[in-house]
């Protein structure tokens, strides 16, 4: 392995993705360093989720290359759960399984281990994301929005994957729950040494937990860097995003 592969968890080069005649991602390049939390911002419908879903292989790409942990992606779906965990926007918990079974699912499908150990690991994961062992036998329909996200996070982390994808992790949560969730992601990222790729609109998350922020506009990454660099950016869309009325208000509050 050469130096660059060691350094980057995800390398996207000249990625082109489109549907029909519409091109959503136009020769996009992006590097995600190992062990960092990268926040991705962009307009609604601007291709943030498309970029994430392309990296994890849910959407076919028309051109370009994607390397994950030094391996080019493509075709190979087995062992995907060992490489990355994904927190979908709505949680995407399996509604016919209990919380415990949901968390055990990746373990059961990918590893050979005893039921006892599987139960212990599931409870351990649930406690790590701030849930109690009593919640393990509930069904997803009995959970609140915040709990659903936590269970989904526990499931995404079941196999301790090196990369964690989060699709709007704090959307639909109240500010306290969202703050807790950000703190939780920060803690887990440090303990487990994760690389986190986070699609978000939450300016508070961007400021508090993200090491770097990438801005996606017109199908390209137009700015990338720590939050304070992005605030200095001259790109018109980035300026509008971070210096609009809402953002200004929030940044004043935070100062």
């Amino acid at each position, binding site marked *: 392995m050469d130096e660059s592969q060691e350094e980057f968890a995800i390398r996207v080069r000249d990625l082109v993705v489109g549907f029909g005649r519409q091109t959503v991602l136009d020769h996009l390049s992006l590097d995600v360093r190992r062990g960092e939390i990268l926040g991705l911002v962009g307009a609604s419908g601007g291709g943030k989720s498309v970029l994430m879903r392309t990296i994890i292989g849910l959407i076919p790409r028309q051109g370009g290359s994607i390397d994950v942990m030094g391996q080019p992606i493509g075709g190979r779906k087995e062992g995907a759960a*060992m490489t990355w965990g994904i927190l979908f926007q709505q949680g995407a918990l399996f509604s016919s399984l209990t919380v415990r079974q949901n968390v055990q699912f990746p373990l059961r499908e990918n*590893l050979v*281990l005893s039921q006892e*150990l599987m139960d212990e690991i599931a*409870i*351990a994961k649930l406690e790590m994301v701030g849930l109690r*062992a009593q919640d393990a036998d509930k*069904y*997803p329909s009995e959970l609140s929005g915040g709990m659903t996200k936590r269970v989904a996070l526990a499931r995404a982390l079941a196999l301790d994957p090196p990369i964690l994808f989060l699709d709007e992790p704090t959307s639909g949560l109240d500010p306290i729950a969202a703050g807790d969730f950000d703190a939780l992601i920060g803690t887990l990222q440090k303990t487990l040494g994760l690389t986190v790729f986070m699609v978000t609109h939450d300016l508070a998350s961007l400021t508090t937990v993200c090491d770097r922020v990438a801005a996606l506009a017109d199908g390209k990454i137009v700015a990338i860097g720590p939050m304070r660099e992005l605030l200095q950016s001259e790109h018109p869309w980035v300026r509008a995003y971070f210096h609009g009325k809402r953002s200004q208000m929030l940044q004043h509050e935070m100062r």
Partner: protein
Amino acid sequence: MNSEPLLLTTPSGDALKLRPEGPWTAANVSALETLSRSVGADVDRSRAVTLDMSGVSALDTLGAWILEKLSRRAASSGRSAEFVGVADHFSGLMDEVRQVNRHTPAPAVAQNPVLLRLGDLGRSTVSAREDITVFLQMLGALFMAVIGVLRRPRSLRLTSLIYQLYRIGWQAIPIVVLITFLIGAIIAQQGFFHFRRFGAESYTVDMVGILVLRELGVLIVAIMVAGRSGSAYTAELGSMKMREEIDALSTMGLDPVHVLILPRVAALIIALPILAFIGSIAALYGGGLVAQFYGGMSPAIYIARLHEAISVTHFEVGILKAPFMALVIGIVACSEGLRVKGSAESLGRQTTTSVVKSIFLVIVLDGLFAIFFASIGM
């Protein structure tokens, strides 16, 4: 760097020194479980256990938990257990694992299986009463909606009614015709085959005519509609319930019964008699074809025999039942749809319940009608 995880044991007197080496990660879980099991007895024997972590090359939650479990096993009976040489980048994870699984809830007490069965029986008896209540409530709500429409005829959802008629009436015709045609043909074939032995072939026509018009035509069509359209109603209303569409309707001051259920049930009540009529004709036609090609009876004779054998009464008996069967199918399908809870599994379960229950009720209703018509001499 080792590619295989190892667990070296160094007993020294009463103390035991464990030295895990290599990658203690989820990918090697079966090896890790074997290793931790193999030292279990040694851990139980020794008075003090030291875990030397300096040889671990990679660690994740699963590996950390297995090691933590070993240390807890020693600590549980009052002996000392400690970790030494934990690398800095693993210490956060080890601390985290220390906190978990401390409060294991008491496992559910295994219940007496006989009592459990009895409990199920009792619960399903109570829920049968609830089923009747739900049915009557839906009937009442529909009745109120009909009164509302009679008062203000413009409030009827005509577009929805027509659309439902198209879906459950018009689009169902091909399959209804095909099935009833085959049923008619099969009955006629059986009639000719068995009646031929005692020279009563001509009575086959009587059997086909009476059976199809009084019973089979409407019953087969009702069962098909329950399976085809009743299930669709339940699934539609159920997924609307799941996505809170029904709650949204209510909050806008609209009655879901009026907007969603009345057009559907009304469409069924209109469509089922028509489908039953078309089905009966198709069955008689199927019987006629078999009479010609299998029984050697010319179409003219078949029609003449049919004319003698059946009367308008037979037709009335059959077609009168259709709207009532439609009402039962509609009410069951819609109320089961509204009982769907949040999960995909519940949607499937209610759809199955809807079809099973409406077919059962259609057959029960048919039996009640048979008694009724017999007692009034029709």
